[in-house]
């Protein structure tokens, strides 16, 4: 039956609030304009009329992280850019998702061995939700990655069970310069929980 609980007469349906919110969220994933190298050309092709990412509701490329839900890291990330990538990620509003597009962002790619200035995978800087392999990936591959993000959104239990916290710290991170309250995963989860309690509306 999907997320539709019941359909009665013309134009009247019932569902849960959570599923309705997830449906709205997955159908309007706004990506950030974030092309760093050659993968960006492929990302633009995905946005253009032939592949048309707008069919999946993700065509509104935003020029600011504050309006974006999805960061498509398209291209080689070098050390000089790394701190900017992290800052842009931090500026995005929750819930936020990251697609690592292309071999360079997945793990360094062709620059793994001799690239003195290339970050060996963007997951050392920000937590990545979906990896899209390829050099560069075809537009279809990026669309597939977007659909996997949408699967993830559809399964979110934000209202009933709270936001999953295990992705707060980059998965294979060696990022040592974190503020003291985020040093260990336990402390970070504690910090996030405290923040959420503070932000929650007071119970009547």
């Amino acid at each position, binding site marked *: 039956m999907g997320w539709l609980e019941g359909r009665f007469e013309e134009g009247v349906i019932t569902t849960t609030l959570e599923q309705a919110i997830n449906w709205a969220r997955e159908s309007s994933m706004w990506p950030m304009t974030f092309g760093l190298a050659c993968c960006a050309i492929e990302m633009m092709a995905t946005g253009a009329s032939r592949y048309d990412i707008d069919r999946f509701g993700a065509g509104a490329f935003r020029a600011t992280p504050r309006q974006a839900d999805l960061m498509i890291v398209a291209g080689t990330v070098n*050390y*000089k850019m*790394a*701190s900017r990538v992290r800052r842009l990620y931090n500026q995005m509003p929750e819930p936020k998702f990251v697609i690592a597009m292309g071999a360079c962002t997945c793990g360094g790619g062709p620059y*793994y061995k001799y690239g*003195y*200035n290339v*970050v*060996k995978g963007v997951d*050392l*800087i920000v937590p990545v939700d979906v990896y899209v392999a390829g050099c560069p990936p075809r537009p279809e591959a990026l669309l597939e990655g977007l659909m996997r993000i949408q699967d993830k959104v559809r399964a979110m239990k934000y209202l009933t069970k709270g936001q999953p916290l295990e992705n707060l710290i980059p998965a294979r*991170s*060696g*990022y*040592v*310069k974190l503020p003291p309250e985020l040093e260990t995963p336990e402390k970070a989860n504690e910090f996030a929980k405290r923040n959420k309690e503070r932000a929650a509306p007071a119970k009547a």
Partner: protein
Amino acid sequence: MTAQEIVAILKERFGPRIKAEKLDAIDPYVVIEPADLVEVCRFLRDDPRLQFDMLNCISGVDYCEPDPAKAAKAGFEPHLEVVYHLSSFVKRHRFVVKLILPRWKDNKPGQLPEVPSVASIWRAADWHERETYDLVGVWFTGHPDLRRILLADDWEGHPLRKDYVFPLEYHGIRGR
């Protein structure tokens, strides 16, 4: 104008200060001392027979074999070269000037070898010299603003040196 004629003009003007020449190369060149560089370049630009009004590129080359087993067969002593590719729009000819430098000044690792800047002669030299300094590690004295141009300001080392050691960590990001 052919390379022979250019070298003849240079030899007539500078004599023994032209240290070496190679005319049968694809890009014929002369080798000069770093101390003479500014004077020679100004002459190359301003002499009415030469008129080298364009500096195509400045390259740093590191002649070094970091593997000691292969060093004996490498066929060169460890040294740096700085190569200036010049051309003239007016006269439609090209020429190359080379400098040979030690890898480190006074053989102390970390002391960059010094070369006078030609940014006062060709403005294009400004960024080329910054790039050579950034990646190969040549200090251009008299340059108006010698900063790193590609890498971050706090980068350590010069990555296109053959004995460069890759960083294991940069601001907390794992290097490998």
